[in-house]
């Protein structure tokens, strides 16, 4: 089940090394379809607090997301994982009454300053939501290329190529290649989620945020998505929220553990290389959560 090419590790029994062997990059290139390399950018979260109205849900988070890596965010339900990644592409402020304090830097530049257009931030940071949200009346094809069409790209051949490539990477191509013009809403829940992944990566954002992308998927599709994440790491920066410890261990380079404080606000307990978090956590809370002793 491991996504590591050429290695034999069973889920849950072994933890991925965090220092990526160069072999991985080669293995990816061998797949042939991911030759594009673009300089990935990092994200620095600087003393971020997030509110819904008067309700503080995230307290003072400081966390660095390394470029060209996969960062997993784990933590109990309701601790603010979704809120945190929604702050990264300025989606949080879309919710009425929602606001933040603190700052986030994308590639060194602050994104929460007057003059920064959230539209531009969101073009650079793609997002896959916790619940699949394809455009239900639009065709599968139009769903995938929606972001490109928004940008005014009309070249049919190009759109076709991007649609196929994105659908292949999202492990959906084989299931939909004969009905690309069927409605996006006519897919199963898991297929819809993969369609949303294809839609997000079609525009090749610099950072991809994924909120439990595999929670509605069967083991085979989950594996495919993990392979995709693995492949994307060479050219993108990825932040993934997951409830699945094995998944976090398998796909991520670094892991951040959040939990809910006594006041009901989520906070960052600890972050570090994934191997360290899973084998040698510095904090008792982390250890309890990882080993399933979390209350």
């Amino acid at each position, binding site marked *: 089940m491991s996504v590591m090419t050429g290695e034999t590790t069973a889920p849950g029994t072994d933890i991925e090394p965090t220092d990526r062997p160069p072999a991985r990059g080669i293995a990816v290139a061998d797949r042939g379809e991911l030759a594009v390399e673009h300089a990935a950018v990092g994200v620095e979260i600087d003393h971020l607090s997030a509110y819904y109205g008067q309700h503080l849900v995230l307290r003072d988070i400081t966390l660095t997301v390394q470029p060209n890596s996969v960062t997993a965010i784990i933590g109990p339900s309701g601790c603010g994982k979704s809120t945190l990644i929604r702050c990264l592409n300025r*989606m949080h402020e*879309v919710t009425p009454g929602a606001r933040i304090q603190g700052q986030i830097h994308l590639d060194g530049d602050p994104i929460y300053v007057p003059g920064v257009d959230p539209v531009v931030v*969101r073009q650079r940071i793609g997002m896959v*939501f916790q619940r699949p949200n394809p455009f239900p009346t639009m065709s599968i094809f139009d769903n995938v290329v929606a972001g490109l069409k928004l940008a005014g790209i009309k070249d049919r051949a190009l759109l076709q190529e991007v649609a196929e490539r994105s659908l292949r990477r999202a492990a959906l191509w084989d299931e939909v290649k004969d009905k690309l013009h*069927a*409605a996006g809403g006519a897919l199963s829940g898991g297929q819809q989620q993969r369609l949303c992944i294809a*839609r997000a990566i079609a525009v090749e954002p610099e950072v991809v945020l994924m909120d439990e992308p595999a929670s509605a998927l069967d083991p085979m599709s989950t594996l495919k998505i993990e392979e995709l994440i693995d492949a994307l790491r060479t050219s993108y920066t990825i932040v993934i929220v997951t409830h699945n410890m094995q998944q976090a261990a398998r796909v991520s380079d670094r892991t951040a553990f959040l939990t809910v404080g006594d006041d009901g606000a989520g906070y960052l307990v600890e972050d570090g290389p994934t191997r360290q978090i899973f084998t040698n956590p510095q904090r008792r809370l982390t250890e309890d959560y990882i080993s399933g002793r979390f209350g």
Partner: protein
Amino acid sequence: MSAPAAEYGRVPALLAQHRPRHGEPAFRALVILASLTVLAVIAGLVVVIARESLRGIAYNGPAFLWGTTWDPVHSVFGALPFIYGTILTSVSALVLAMLIGVGVALFLAELAPRWLAGPVGFMVEMLAAIPSVVYGLWGIFVLAPWIRDYVEVPLHDTLGFLPFFTGNPIGIGNLEAVVVLTIMVLPTVAAVSRDVVAAVPLSQREAALALGATRWETIRLGVFPYARSGIIGAGILGLARGIGETMAVTMVIGNAPTISLSLFSQGYTMASVIANEFTEATTDLYRSSLIEIGLLLLIVTLLINAAARLLVWRVAYGASARNVLA
């Protein structure tokens, strides 16, 4: 562990006791009765109208549909001017009301701050509750003179060579009817569209926003496709009001059975002629011919409704229907 009521395993037995046995048939009977009543009323309506218009149908023949002369004194009955007037005014009003109404709906649901959207939305709904005779009076005394002085006269002076602006602008005619009707249809279209747009899930907007869509692009990508069938439904409701509207239109359209492209020309609608002339219909034939117009109005209304329903169905289920066929 005492309280037996809370003992685990009791719930299924309790549920079984409460399974409805007598309510179901009674409910069914009630619902069937209600639907039969509706059917009976419609059937009765059609039967009576058809029977009462038999005399007219026999005398006027099919030429009733395309005859342009309405001369009760000499017993010449042609209904085309009324059909033309009804379709012209209601369709024009619908087009205008859709354009404005959908704009108002998007503004209220997407753009307006809450303190503004609430009161404005309430006022839009209030517009729908104003009796149509009030609209008619306002049309005659306020709107008509204003339109005549500031719209019709300038248009006539500058573009009078076009067929739409010929004739004498007297402040009574097609244009006034269309404007009054638009204002009457607008609240229905705007209020229903607003509810439809507001019901589009947030996740659709977020999907568009996350792709880097601007506000307008978010509406185009995430809101419109989802709300499309509902907005068309709003249009159908508006059209239904427009076609059947009698009082206000009668007061401003001029009530002259002419067929003219000109906005300044006087016109007549099916509903208006029935309302105006029914009490003066002295002969049986005259009366029967008026009822025949009523029959036509019924048929036109049904046809437009059926066409609109078909449209909604195709828009709403078109994609999945194609999917099934493919």
